[in-house]
């Protein structure tokens, strides 16, 4: 490769034009009302219409969700996704604002050595299952979850291994095992 490589980034903010007026109205209101709860430089309106990203401090997450439910009628939860950013782990809550027709993603960054943030299952019952899932898959712990349990991985899975983290090294050779080349002999079944 020659020449300067363009920086690969997920962040593609939109222009302040007529197409994105509703989204910027919402984002400006959020930045004004909850200025100390959000990380302002990580909040933006995506160039794709009807898409807003907000990053929230972990300790203010519950307050922010309550504010969104109270002021913006945010009641429909889509899902929760996790990411491994290297130093940080990230939980992304995806919500739909039906009246404004906007999908909003609330990002929570937690440090890798202490990946904990307050659970919002009592405010949003729909994330009960996915918060358990993110604890299993990424090791991001929603503290105060009313019903912590194992939901997806096998029962004999070791507790301290999180398969969707980038540094999971596959110590038991599971990924090699599933690349099968033929039926297993009958005596091994």
């Amino acid at each position, binding site marked *: 490769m020659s020449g300067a490589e363009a920086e690969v980034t997920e962040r593609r903010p939109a222009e302040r034009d007529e197409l994105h007026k509703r989204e910027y109205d919402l984002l400006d209101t959020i930045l004004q009302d909850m200025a100390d709860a959000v990380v302002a430089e990580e909040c933006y309106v995506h160039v794709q219409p009807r898409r807003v990203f907000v990053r929230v401090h972990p300790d203010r997450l519950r307050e922010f969700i309550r504010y969104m439910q109270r002021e913006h009628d945010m009641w429909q939860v889509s899902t929760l996704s996790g990411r491994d950013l290297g130093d940080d782990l990230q939980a992304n809550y995806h919500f739909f604002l039906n009246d404004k027709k906007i999908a909003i993603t609330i990002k929570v960054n937690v440090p890798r050595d202490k990946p904990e943030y307050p659970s919002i299952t009592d405010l949003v019952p729909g994330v009960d299952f996915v918060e358990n899932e993110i604890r299993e898959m990424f090791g991001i712990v929603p503290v105060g979850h009313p019903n912590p349990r194992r939901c997806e*991985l096998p029962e004999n899975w070791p507790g301290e291994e999180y*398969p969707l983290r980038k540094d999971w090294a596959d110590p038991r050779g*599971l*990924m090699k095992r*599933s*690349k099968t080349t*033929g*039926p*297993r002999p009958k005596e091994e*079944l």
Partner: protein
Amino acid sequence: MGFLRRLVDKAKIKSPWVFHFNSGGCNGCDIEIIAALMPRLDLERFGVKLVGSPRHADIMLCTGPVTEQIKPRLQRIYEQMAEPKYVVAIGSCACSGGVFRGAYNVLGGVDQAIPVTAYVPGCPPKPSAIMHGAYQLLQVLAEIMGVSPKELAPEFEEPPAPTVDTTETGAEVAQT
């Protein structure tokens, strides 16, 4: 005794009851299995019947890559089936792992957990492919049990080839 044995073997070939098991797939193949059993292709004309319990079934139709979690359940259900028992792996996932090949939580194919007799690849396989797989399996079974394939499905016999006199021109053939 020979006559009775033959009768039982023929009855087994003529009425293979199937049981359907999903070992962690996406339901695509399951829908196609249902489509194969429905009146358009009508697998039931071979005597194939979908039953709800492995204890009643002769053939298990298995879809999906076998996940780690479901492996003991699949083996237990296979053990519950009465002899003689056969397994058909339906779909790419059930044959080799499919898109889940190399994942950490699947075994990569039904043949890693239980012995498999026939494979139907495809993602999902068309109902006609499932039909073809089932018919191939029945042919194999007929061979094993010593039943002639003609008894299996008379309507599947090839129709006699139309006799065309090659010495005449095409136009005259069309007239006759």
